[in-house]
């Protein structure tokens, strides 16, 4: 398809030239921008995460510092272990110990049986199982803080995170300090440390504890956990995740930042570039069509002009309507055709002139004028001097000569025959030969126009080469018409032609003309005047005796001659 059509190749090239750079450019821009924005977002995320992790230190500090100061107070330990502490005094110690943290979290003191004895807020005498949950964990941890996530983070009335530390008296457990952190506490700890993103706090088993958007607890947290268990990093086309663990509490912090360069943006970009590409295609078509038409239509015109030229139509011309290479080409072509045409016309004229000159020269070989007059004079002198044979001969010769120098080229057949008879008369006297001459011409052919002096050379040839020296010989001249062709045959019963002369000898070999210039000339005249299919045919005579020369020429009459 592309190989055969220049237009298609032009289109393809234009499309390639416009589409390839465009698509490369789009892809590059998209990738570069995306990576740039992503890395910016990641940097931001890392900073925010660091700040958030730092502020989470509050959680661990609140519990460990309070627990430490309570543990250090013998009154508290004793009061808790014995269950006999003064309520106000104990509360005072508890409030003192949790002073800086109390506004964000609730602190409770539980005894070793899991009954809440003192609290910075809310009801006392609630209890927690010591064989289950946070107190069990704290008991196992032996004075190290433990943190338990709420079972249901959507229940914001309940603490989202509980931390507990076992308080120890001599040799054993005397109670627990429990810190309860509610939604509001998380808000105050984390708010303002991040922007344009969501924060999720997960337990060490990736269970949700807190999220800045409550629905994320049910959607994002399980997905993150699943991804972690499947060994994949957190992946999302629309968000970038930064996950960090807060070492003291083992809690995980997840920062979710929306990608500035989302799949939607990419789609939009690609849509725009697609539209650009379509535009490019359109432009290619719009520009390519006229250009290709400008190129192909002159080529096509040139092709058809050459076709016409091949069919010998020399009138072909191309319109020269532009000045570019194609215009020049068309002008050159026209010049070439004109040159060819004039060349050919010149050639034809030359040929024609040559032919006429040749004919005229052939005729002129025979006669100058004065011979005629001389012969007339001779005739009269011989009549005066009573030499009748000379008178006859000179009369005949004069007639022949006059006939020869007459202006007309073509004569009726009867005139030709008259002149032939004069010639025969002369020859009979000259050669004193005993040959008979017969003419058998149908009367209707008498008026046929023939070139003058075509029969004389044939008969002369028959006399000189055929019958001279043979007694009782006959020379016949016959004429017949068949299919508009006039055939004039001269036969004799003489020696006949040598075999190499039979047929159309002068067409085969011009060298043969040397000895028979007369016959050659006749053949030449016929062919030049009427065409190659006419001319002389040399054959053996009837019954293989003598010779037969047939001149063939088209049948023409006087009026036709004038038409020519």
């Amino acid at each position, binding site marked *: 398809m592309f190989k055969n059509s220049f237009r298609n190749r032009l289109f393809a090239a234009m499309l390639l030239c416009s589409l390839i750079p465009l698509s*490369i450019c789009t*892809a*590059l821009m998209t*990738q*570069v921008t995306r*990576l740039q924005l*992503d*890395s910016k977002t*990641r940097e931001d995320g890392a900073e925010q995460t660091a700040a958030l992790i730092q502020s989470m230190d509050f959680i661990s500090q609140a519990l460990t510092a309070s627990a430490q100061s309570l543990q250090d107070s013998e009154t508290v330990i004793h009061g808790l272990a014995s269950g006999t502490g003064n309520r106000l005094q104990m509360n005072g110690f508890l409030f003192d110990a949790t002073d800086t943290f109390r506004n964000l979290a609730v602190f409770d003191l539980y005894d070793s049986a899991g009954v809440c004895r003192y609290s910075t807020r809310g009801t006392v005498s609630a209890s927690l*199982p010591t*064989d*289950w*949950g946070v107190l*069990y*964990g704290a008991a*196992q941890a032996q004075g190290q803080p433990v943190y*338990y*996530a709420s*079972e*249901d983070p959507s229940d914001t009335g309940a603490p989202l995170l509980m931390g507990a530390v076992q308080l120890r008296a001599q040799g054993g457990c005397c109670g627990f300090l429990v810190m309860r952190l509610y939604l509001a506490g998380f808000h105050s700890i984390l708010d303002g440390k991040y922007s344009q993103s969501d924060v999720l706090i997960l337990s060490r*088993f*990736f*269970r949700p504890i807190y999220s800045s958007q409550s629905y994320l607890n049910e959607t994002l947290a399980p997905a993150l956990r699943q991804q*972690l*268990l499947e*060994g*994949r*990093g*957190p*992946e999302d086309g629309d968000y970038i*995740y*930064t*996950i960090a*663990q807060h070492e003291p509490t083992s809690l*995980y912090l997840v920062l979710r930042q929306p990608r500035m360069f989302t799949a939607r943006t990419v789609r939009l970009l690609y849509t725009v570039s697609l539209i650009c590409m379509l535009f490019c295609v359109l432009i290619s078509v719009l520009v390519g069509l006229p250009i290709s038409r400008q190129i192909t239509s002159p080529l096509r015109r040139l092709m058809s002009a050459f076709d016409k030229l091949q069919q010998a139509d020399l009138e072909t011309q191309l319109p020269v309507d532009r000045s570019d290479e194609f215009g020049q080409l068309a002008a050159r072509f026209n010049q070439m055709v004109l040159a060819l045409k004039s060349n050919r016309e010149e050639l034809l004229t030359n040929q024609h002139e040559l032919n006429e000159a040749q004919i005229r020269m052939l005729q002129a070989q025979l006669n100058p004028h004065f011979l005629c007059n001389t012969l007339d004079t001779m005739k009269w002198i011989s009549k005066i001097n009573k030499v009748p044979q000379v008178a006859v001969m000179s009369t005949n010769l004069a007639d022949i000569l006059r006939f020869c120098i007459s202006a007309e080229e073509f004569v009726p057949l009867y005139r030709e025959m008259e002149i032939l008879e004069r010639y025969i008369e002369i020859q009979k006297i000259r050669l004193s030969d005993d040959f008979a001459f017969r003419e058998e011409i149908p009367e209707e052919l008498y008026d046929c126009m023939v070139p003058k002096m075509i029969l004389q050379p044939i008969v002369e040839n028959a006399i000189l080469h055929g019958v001279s020296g043979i007694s009782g010989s006959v020379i016949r001249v016959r004429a017949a018409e068949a299919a508009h062709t006039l055939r004039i045959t001269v036969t004799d019963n003489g020696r006949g032609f040598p075999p190499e002369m039979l047929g159309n000898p002068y067409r085969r070999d011009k060298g043969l003309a040397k000895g028979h210039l007369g016959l050659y000339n006749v053949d030449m005249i016929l062919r030049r005047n009427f065409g190659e299919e006419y001319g002389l045919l040399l054959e053996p005579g009837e019954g293989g005796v003598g010779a037969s020369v047939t001149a063939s020429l088209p049948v023409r009459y006087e009026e036709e001659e004038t038409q020519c």
Partner: protein
Amino acid sequence: MKKILVLCLLLLLTGCAKAPAETETIPESRLVVYTSHKEAVYRPIIREFEERTGIWVELVTGGSYELLERLEAEQTAPKADVMFGGGVESLESYRHLFQALRCQQWGTISQDFRQPEDDWTPFSALPLVLIYNPKLVDPARLTGWEDLTRPEFRGKIAFASPTRSASSFTAVVTVLRACGEDTLTALAENLAGCQLDSSGEVLTAVADGEALVGITLEETALQRIAAGSNLGLVYPKEGTSCVPDGTAVVAGAPHPENARAFLDFTLSREVQQLLGSQFFRRSVREDVTVPDSLPALEELALVSYDPRWASENREEILEKWEKAVKEG
């Protein structure tokens, strides 16, 4: 300039080059649990198990038959470690999927619930009870299975189709054992062709008064009552069954050690106590007492219930049942 060009080309070639994800250390110690329990039941247990053992639990939840069929499909390459939940009948009929594992607390399990081959381990006991709407039914008129065949309850019995509900099937077998085939047929006929789609609908139907009486599990009934539904509860005098649900360790489990730890944990005193105090279920351990509000298991008339026999004759029993329901 050249470097930038090369970089650009590289970017182009690699396409969406992924930034290295900040992967956490992928948890090594894991357990995959398929559970048909309600979230309220499995959540505290799973959380506590994680906290105590440090094992990460992956949960797949669903209906018990659904999960068992999934286990069956995964039999050649098991993904799950433990099947947590499901009536012992269903576990029994899929016992080829499980490995025999005797838990540490086997000795503490009540004789009634012990399973000799240890293909599965009982978790909690769930007696069948009758419920009624106290505003519409005189408690004196409803004391046992026989009462359900009375004409006054005709078409007013809320009962889930035993082909769909495992507890309903248990009920059918229980009636068969307690009262015999005639009572069962009479009961079927007394439904007047009306069977519910799921056992959950039974309670709603009775509480709303659409039905007068219903057959369901003690656990679900107590939960509804605790949630404030208007329901009365009767333990049938002819006797009831107390079929446990169970836990089974999958044969070829990818984490066999953790699976064993979990199995032991489900039978730990803490968890078994939690059953009574939080989930209205009865412990399968002899040494864990039922809450004071509930009658002790020994006080209830219990029929002997052979889960293996029930699962082997399931088709036949159901066929008879459906036929009787249609005739009624």
